[in-house]
């Protein structure tokens, strides 16, 4: 009777997984499994450190020593590597300080005031038949400011509004005898042009301004002719949705939304090329891609943003895979539109606007990975025979088929960090596979950019855990509206904020965004990457290209652990009558360990055949 201890090892870009089993005449009995972060770039000898730790832990759990293992089999990892980049295609620029449209938390009063901009210390130098908007730099005290405005009004100077540098809007307002709207927290007040006609508008709490955000409102206020109205219109547009605003009329003052020349992409197919401008957005790019069918390479226009982007990508990947940059060809591309908060150039109060951009994931085929070298090094390190065996896609399917309720024909979606890999096993056992750019890391990048975090680790947490909003010292509201009490006071740095519920820990987000907005960004990012890629993958691997001929789709990989991605695909694919869900490898492991399990099963079969 043969009785062997066999370990399967799956090296991925992010994770290394191990399955340990005993093979005997009674069949295969799995003893343990383990997962560690992949050490180094996939397919290099750096991986050995990680594999060894994983094997040791698995052996440990099975109650054996690593040198008791009879054979280790590692997967012939697919020679693909992904990378990410982002390109802005719009930019908002203010020239000549013609507006401030920011939203201080506590402006003063409400209403509309029009007049010439006058510094508070020159208020009495003005003739009394002028309408005035008073400009208050930070060095002045609110008591003094208020009394001075009151005195000026007493003298008949028509003060109709105020622009204040410090957060003093309400304080000044409360001390005025005649009530005027006040916009405060204008940090760069020295940029406010003086002696110019200006309007200050503040809306009631919970409402938005109506006059300054309407071009004809501005035309009425400033008595503009039609030509000037055309020039000032982008200001009105930029103010849509604000609670408060200041607009100052200067001869050259302008707000422009500039399209950045992001450059053109040339998608090189097997038979044809298509060139598309990045400015046209992701839909246009993906449509062009669809037209040319399979991709041979992507080239960016030189001396443009996208050109530079693709160059640095090639450089990166060349370094990683130790090839020359010219050998690197992009074999798949996923473009996704993103809306990114950016600070307005030329602004006076740190205003942000939402600019549009395109995010790219790209996928490069490298020359064959030196897996044999990894195997040899590993064998030496642990003193156990190591063999390279089994195409990754085939092993993944084998492992996934241990999920209850599945059978051939089947498609697996391996949703990892850098790529989404798909493989189909037909009725007759024939396997087709494909590798797509864009997976978990792209979701993380999109969340990071769209929330303006500049913090990958935080974005990764937002991706993985549910949100809440801390409503008081002792309770918070969860994503679904449920209230949750706390006996101990919630930490001050979480108070009033959106927090990530990482188990018992609360990680606060220091951004001015509602919980619902964060949730929406998180979910849209997941949809844009994984629903898109799920469908792209199916169209590639299903022989007829017609999704209705398919019954089973099984998701594996790290991103199949996500608390909502698999459900999004379940919903989407049900439209085509496809049963889709995350795997439950061996009925117990969930979406993890498919390839490692497949390796063991393949090995067992061979042993059995002998």
């Amino acid at each position, binding site marked *: 009777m043969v009785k062997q201890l066999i370990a399967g090892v799956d090296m991925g870009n992010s994770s290394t997984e191990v399955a340990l089993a005993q093979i005997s005449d009674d069949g295969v009995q799995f003893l343990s499994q383990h997962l560690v972060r992949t050490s180094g770039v996939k397919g290099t000898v750096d991986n050995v450190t990680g594999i060894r730790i994983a094997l040791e832990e698995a052996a440990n759990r099975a109650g054996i020593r690593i040198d008791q293992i009879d054979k280790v089999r590692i997967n012939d990892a697919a020679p693909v590597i992904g990378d990410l980049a982002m390109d802005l295609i719009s930019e908002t620029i203010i020239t000549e300080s013609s507006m401030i449209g920011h939203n201080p938390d506590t402006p003063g009063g409400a209403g509309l005031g029009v007049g010439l901009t006058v510094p508070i210390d020159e208020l009495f130098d003005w003739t009394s038949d002028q309408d005035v908007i008073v400009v208050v730099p930070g060095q002045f005290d609110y008591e003094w400011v208020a009394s001075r405005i009151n005195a000026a009004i007493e003298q008949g100077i028509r003060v109709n509004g105020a622009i204040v540098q410090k957060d003093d809007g*309400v*304080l000044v307002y409360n001390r005025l005898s005649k009530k005027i709207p006040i916009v405060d927290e204008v940090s760069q007040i020295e940029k406010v042009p003086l002696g110019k006609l200006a309007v200050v508008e503040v809306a009631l709490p919970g409402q938005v301004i109506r006059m300054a955000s309407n071009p004809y409102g501005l035309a009425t206020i400033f008595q503009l002719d039609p030509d000037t109205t055309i020039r000032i219109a982008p200001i009105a547009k930029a103010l849509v949705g604000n609670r408060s605003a200041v607009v100052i009329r200067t001869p050259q003052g302008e707000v422009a939304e500039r399209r950045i020349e992001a450059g053109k992409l040339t998608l090189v197919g097997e038979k044809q090329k298509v060139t598309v401008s990045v400015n046209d957005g992701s839909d246009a790019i993906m449509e062009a891609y669809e037209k040319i069918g399979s991709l041979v390479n992507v080239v960016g226009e030189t001396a443009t943003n996208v050109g530079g982007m693709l160059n640095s990508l090639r450089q990166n990947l060349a370094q990683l895979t130790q090839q020359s940059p010219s050998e690197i060809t992009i074999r798949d591309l996923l473009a996704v539109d993103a809306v990114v908060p950016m600070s307005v150039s030329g602004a006076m109060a740190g205003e942000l606007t939402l600019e549009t951009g395109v995010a790219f994931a790209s996928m490069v085929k490298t020359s064959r990975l030196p897996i044999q070298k990894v195997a040899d090094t590993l064998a030496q390190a642990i003193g156990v025979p190591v063999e390279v065996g089994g195409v990754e896609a085939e092993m993944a399917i084998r492992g996934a088929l241990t999920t209850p309720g599945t059978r051939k024909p089947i498609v697996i979606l391996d949703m990892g960090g850098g790529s989404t890999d798909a493989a189909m096993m037909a009725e007759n056992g024939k396997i087709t596979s494909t590798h797509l750019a864009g997976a978990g890391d792209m979701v993380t990048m999109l969340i990071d950019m769209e929330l303006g975090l500049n913090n990958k680790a935080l974005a990764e947490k937002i991706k993985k855990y549910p949100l809440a909003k801390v*409503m008081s*010292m002792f309770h918070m509201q969860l994503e679904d509206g449920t209230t949750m009490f706390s006996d101990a006071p919630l930490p001050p740095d979480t108070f009033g904020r959106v927090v990530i519920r990482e188990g018992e820990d609360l990680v606060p987000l220091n951004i001015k965004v509602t919980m619902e907005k964060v949730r929406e960004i998180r979910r849209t990012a997941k949809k844009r990457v994984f629903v898109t890629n799920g469908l792209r993958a199916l169209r590639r691997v299903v022989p007829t290209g017609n999704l209705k001929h398919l019954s089973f789709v099984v998701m594996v990989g790290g991103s199949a652990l996500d608390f909502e991605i698999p459900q999004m695909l379940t919903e989407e694919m049900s439209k085509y009558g496809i049963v889709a869900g995350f795997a439950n490898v061996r009925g117990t492991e969930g979406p993890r360990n498919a390839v490692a399990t497949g390796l063991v099963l393949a090995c067992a079969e061979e042993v059995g055949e002998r």
Partner: protein
Amino acid sequence: MNNEIYLPIICSPAVSLADIQDLCAGLEEEGVPYQCEQMAQEQQASEFGAIAALKSPLFIGIGVDRHLNCSLSHQNLPGNKEYITGSRHGLRQFGRNCGRLAKGLPLVMGGIENA
């Protein structure tokens, strides 16, 4: 009036209204009404804060000691535990944050010491 909404500030006998003007300005800018009261006996800021919280219609109260150390307490906090504290060098921001606590808004950071 019994149902008026305000935030009580309870001060050391050594503190004058002028001393805590900045604290009050922070509250006023946030639109949160307050009432100041002076105690006869010297105590710690956290003790004053706990007393203020107990009588507060907003369930939180501020205590200020003779050195202008400030403390914000909540009725549900045990003993004299403080939620946030401030010092003479950040009265305006401490007041602002107390106002924001009353309104359920996130605190402005920089210079706040968590208690």
